[in-house]
C-alpha cells in the first residue's frame, strides 16, 4: 500500500513538473531551446568592380574571413597553434601566442567573464583560411591522441576547434593597378554594422567613386535562418528562410587606363624636373565631355590608404581652386567675339607694357605696341585682353564667365568638388574689369578650366564632365547608361572656329607655347602663368607661380582636350615651359594610342628612309 502510494506520489510529482516545464515555463524554455539551435546567418554581398572603358579592372573584391580564437579551449598549446597558423596570417608567432593567452574581463553586470572571442586577423583570404584549417587538422601534439582516455582526447580535439572564423564573411578590396587612377577610384574603409543582432563588418566607400557610388557598388546582403545540431552543424532540412545576396553593380568609367598611365607618367617626369608642390592633368574628349584621364601628383596607393597623408589623397583637379592666369583670357576674348564687340583683326594699343588704370599699373611681360585681337592671344598680352574685356563690359563678361561654368560645380561624380570663386558684378572694384580677364580676382578648378577649353573646341557647347559610362550587373547586363549632356551652348559655331584658329597661333613660333607643338597634329591651346596670392598679406607671393597649359588636338576636329596644371614649380615657371612639354608627351602618346588621324597626311614608312622609330 505504501509502495503504491509512493509510486503514485512520484507520478503526480513528475506530472506537476511536466506541467510546470511545458505549460507554466513554456516560453522561457522554448526561447532557450530556440536560442540553442536557431541561427540567423548573414550572407555578405560582393562589392561591384570598378572598370575602365576597355574593361581593365581598377578595383575588385575578394571574400575574406575574420579569424578568431577561443583561448579557453587551448589549454597550454598556444605556442604550438600560433606556430602552425602564423605563416597564413603573416604575423609573428610569438605575438599570436600572446594574443591567445587566457584573460578575464568584467562585463556590464560586474561579473568576471573569460574572453572566448579574440580576433586574430581580419581580411584573411579564403585560401589562407583553408591553409589554417589544414594546419590545425595536422597539429602534432607529440602523443597518440586516439589512445588517450575520452576526456583527455576531447581536450586535444578542442585545441583544433579553438581557432575559428566569424560566421559573416568580410571582403578584401583590391586595386590591381596600384596607384593608377587612385584619386578617381578612391578607397574603402570598414563599417561595423549589426543586422538583427549579428555583427557585420561591411565595406564603406571613403573616397572617389567608391564613395560616390557606394550604394550601387555595395549590393544587398542576403540572410537565412537555420537550425543546428548538437555539434553546431547546420541541419539543412530545417532551413526556413534562405534569401540569396544580390551582388553590387560594376561601375564602368569613361577613363582609359592607358591614357591615365600616360598622363601619370608625364606628371612624374614633370615633377622630377620641376619639383612642384603639386601637379595635375586632365584628359577630356571635348565632343562628349568624357574624362579619359585624371592624374594627380602627389598620389597614394588605395591598397594602403593609411600609409598616405590627406594632402596626397586630395584630388586637386576638383578640390583646389587657383587664380588661373592667362588661360582665362579665352573667356573675355570669346565673349567679345561672340557679342561682335570686337573682331579678330581689330587692333588695340598695348601701351608698351605699362597701362595705368584705376590708379594702378597693369603690366605685360614684354613691351607691346598695337596688336590685333589674334596677336593679343598669341602673345598673351594682359593689357590687350583688359581692353577687349572693357569693350565687352562688366555684366556681359560676368555672364560669359558663369555661362562657361565658373563659380559653380561641374557635377562630376567625385567628392569634394569646389565651386571656385566668382564675385557678382556688384562686388567688383574698378580694377576688376582689367584683372579678371587675365585670370586674377577669380579662382577656378583645373576641371572647370579644361571643360571651358573643351567648349571652345567643340563648337561652343559646355559639356557636363562624364566620368561614369555605365553600371552593369555581374553578367555584364547594362543597368544604367550615362549619356553625354550639353549644359548649354555658350558661344556660336563661328566664334568657336575663330577661337580655334586664334588658339592655334599660341603653339606657333611667335606664340607662348612652342614646346607644346606636335609633329603630326595641329594643336590649339593657351598657356597660363599666375603668381600665387599671399596667404599672410595682401598681394602676391614673390617667386610662387601656378603654371598651366590647356590645349586640344587635332585642332580642326578635336578629339582630346588636355589640361596640365603645376603648382609652385621650380626651375622655370612659364606655363609654356613647365606644362607645355608634359602636354606634348600626353597629347602625342594618347593620340598615337587612340589612333587619331594626323592633321596632314604623313609619308608612310615605305617612302621614308629607314630609321628607328622608337625603342
Amino acid at each position, binding site marked *: 500500500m505504501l509502495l503504491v502510494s509512493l509510486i503514485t506520489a512520484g507520478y503526480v510529482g513528475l506530472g506537476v513538473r511536466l506541467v510546470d516545464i511545458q505549460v507554466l515555463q513554456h516560453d522561457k524554455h522554448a526561447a532557450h531551446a530556440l536560442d540553442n539551435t536557431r541561427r540567423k546567418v548573414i550572407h555578405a554581398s560582393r562589392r561591384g568592380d570598378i572598370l575602365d572603358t576597355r574593361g581593365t579592372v581598377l578595383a575588385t573584391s575578394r*571574400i575574406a574571413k575574420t579569424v578568431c580564437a577561443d583561448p579557453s579551449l587551448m589549454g597550454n598549446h598556444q605556442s604550438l597553434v600560433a606556430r602552425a597558423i602564423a605563416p597564413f596570417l603573416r604575423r609573428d608567432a610569438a605575438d599570436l601566442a600572446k594574443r591567445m593567452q587566457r584573460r578575464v574581463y568584467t562585463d556590464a553586470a560586474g561579473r568576471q567573464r573569460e574572453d572566448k572571442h579574440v580576433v586574430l586577423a581580419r581580411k584573411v*583570404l579564403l585560401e589562407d583560411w583553408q591553409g589554417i584549417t589544414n594546419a590545425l587538422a595536422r597539429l602534432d601534439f607529440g602523443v597518440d591522441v586516439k589512445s588517450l582516455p575520452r576526456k583527455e582526447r576531447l581536450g586535444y580535439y578542442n585545441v583544433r576547434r579553438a581557432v575559428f572564423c566569424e560566421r559573416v564573411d568580410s571582403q578584401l578590396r583590391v586595386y590591381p593597378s596600384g596607384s593608377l587612377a587612385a584619386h578617381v577610384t578612391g578607397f574603402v574603409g570598414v563599417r561595423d554594422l549589426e543586422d538583427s543582432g549579428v555583427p557585420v563588418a561591411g565595406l564603406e566607400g571613403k573616397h572617389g567613386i567608391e564613395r560616390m557610388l557606394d550604394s550601387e557598388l555595395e549590393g544587398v546582403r542576403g540572410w537565412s535562418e537555420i537550425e543546428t545540431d548538437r555539434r553546431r552543424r547546420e541541419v539543412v*532540412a530545417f532551413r526556413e528562410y534562405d534569401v540569396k545576396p544580390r551582388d553590387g553593380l560594376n561601375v564602368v568609367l569613361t577613363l582609359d587606363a592607358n591614357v591615365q598611365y600616360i598622363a601619370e607618367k608625364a606628371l612624374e617626369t614633370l615633377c622630377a624636373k620641376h619639383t612642384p608642390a603639386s601637379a595635375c592633368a586632365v584628359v577630356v574628349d571635348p565632343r562628349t565631355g568624357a574624362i579619359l584621364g585624371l592624374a594627380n601628383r602627389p598620389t597614394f596607393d588605395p591598397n594602403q590608404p593609411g600609409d598616405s597623408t590627406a594632402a596626397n589623397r586630395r584630388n586637386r583637379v576638383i578640390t583646389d581652386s587657383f587664380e588661373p592666369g592667362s588661360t582665362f583670357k579665352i573667356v573675355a576674348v570669346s565673349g567679345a567675339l561672340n557679342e561682335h564687340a570686337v573682331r579678330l583683326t581689330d587692333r588695340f594699343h598695348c601701351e608698351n607694357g605699362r597701362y595705368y588704370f584705376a590708379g594702378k599699373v597693369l603690366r605685360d611681360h614684354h613691351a607691346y605696341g598695337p596688336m590685333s585681337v589674334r596677336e593679343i592671344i598669341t602673345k598673351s598680352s594682359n593689357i590687350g585682353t583688359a581692353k577687349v574685356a572693357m569693350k565687352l563690359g562688366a555684366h556681359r563678361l560676368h555672364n560669359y564667365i558663369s555661362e562657361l561654368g565658373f563659380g559653380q560645380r561641374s557635377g562630376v561624380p567625385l567628392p569634394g568638388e569646389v565651386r571656385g570663386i566668382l564675385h557678382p558684378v556688384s562686388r567688383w572694384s574698378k580694377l576688376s574689369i582689367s584683372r579678371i580677364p587675365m585670370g586674377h580676382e577669380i579662382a577656378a578648378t583645373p576641371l572647370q578650366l579644361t571643360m571651358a577649353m573643351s567648349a571652345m573646341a567643340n563648337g561652343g557647347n559646355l559639356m557636363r564632365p562624364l566620368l561614369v559610362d555605365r553600371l552593369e550587373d555581374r553578367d555584364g547586363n547594362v543597368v544604367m547608361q550615362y549619356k553625354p549632356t550639353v549644359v548649354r551652348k555658350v558661344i556660336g559655331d563661328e566664334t568657336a572656329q575663330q577661337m580655334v584658329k586664334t588658339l592655334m597661333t599660341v603653339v606657333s613660333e611667335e606664340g607662348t607655347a612652342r614646346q607644346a607643338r606636335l609633329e603630326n597634329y595641329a594643336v590649339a591651346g593657351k598657356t597660363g602663368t599666375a603668381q600665387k596670392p599671399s596667404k599672410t598679406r595682401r598681394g602676391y607671393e614673390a617667386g610662387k607661380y601656378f603654371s598651366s597649359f590647356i590645349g586640344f588636338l587635332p585642332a580642326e576636329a578635336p578629339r582630346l582636350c588636355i589640361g596640365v596644371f603645376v603648382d609652385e614649380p621650380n626651375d622655370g615657371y612659364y606655363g609654356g615651359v613647365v606644362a607645355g612639354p608634359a602636354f606634348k608627351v600626353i597629347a602625342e602618346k594618347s593620340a*598615337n594610342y587612340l589612333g587619331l588621324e594626323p592633321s596632314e597626311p604623313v609619308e*608612310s614608312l615605305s617612302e*621614308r628612309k629607314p630609321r628607328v*622609330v622608337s625603342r
Partner: protein
Amino acid sequence: MPRNRKKQESPLSVGLWIRAALLCLVLGGTAMGYVWQKSQIHQLGTEVRKKEVRLELLRGDNERWQQLRAEMRSTQKLYDRVRTLGLGLAMPQPEQVLRLPDLPLDAKELKQSKLGDYRTVTNKPRRRRP
C-alpha cells in the same frame, strides 16, 4: 438451437489475421517509409551543404584567378614588364598606321577605280617536285 461447442468457430478468423497483418504491414511500411524519407532528407541536406561549401570554395578560386588576371593585365604591370624584358614596344607612330578609306558603294572613287586597283593575295598550294 444451441451451437455445438466443439465445432464453435474461432473469433479470430483467418481473414481477420490477414487484415491485421496487412494493417501492421501498412503501419510498419509507413513508419519505415517515414524514416527512410527522413533519412533521405537528411542525406540530401548534408549533400546540399557540402555542395554549398564547394561552391563557396570555387567562387573563392574564381575570384582569386580574376584578381590574378586583373593584376597581370594592369597597365602599370604591362608597361613595367615591357621595360624589364626590353621588348622595345611603343605606341604606333602615325606613319606606321595604314588608313583605308571606308567609302560608300556609290562613291565616285570606287566607280572610277579599275579592276586590279586593289589586289587580293591568296595562298596557292605548293607544287610538288617530281
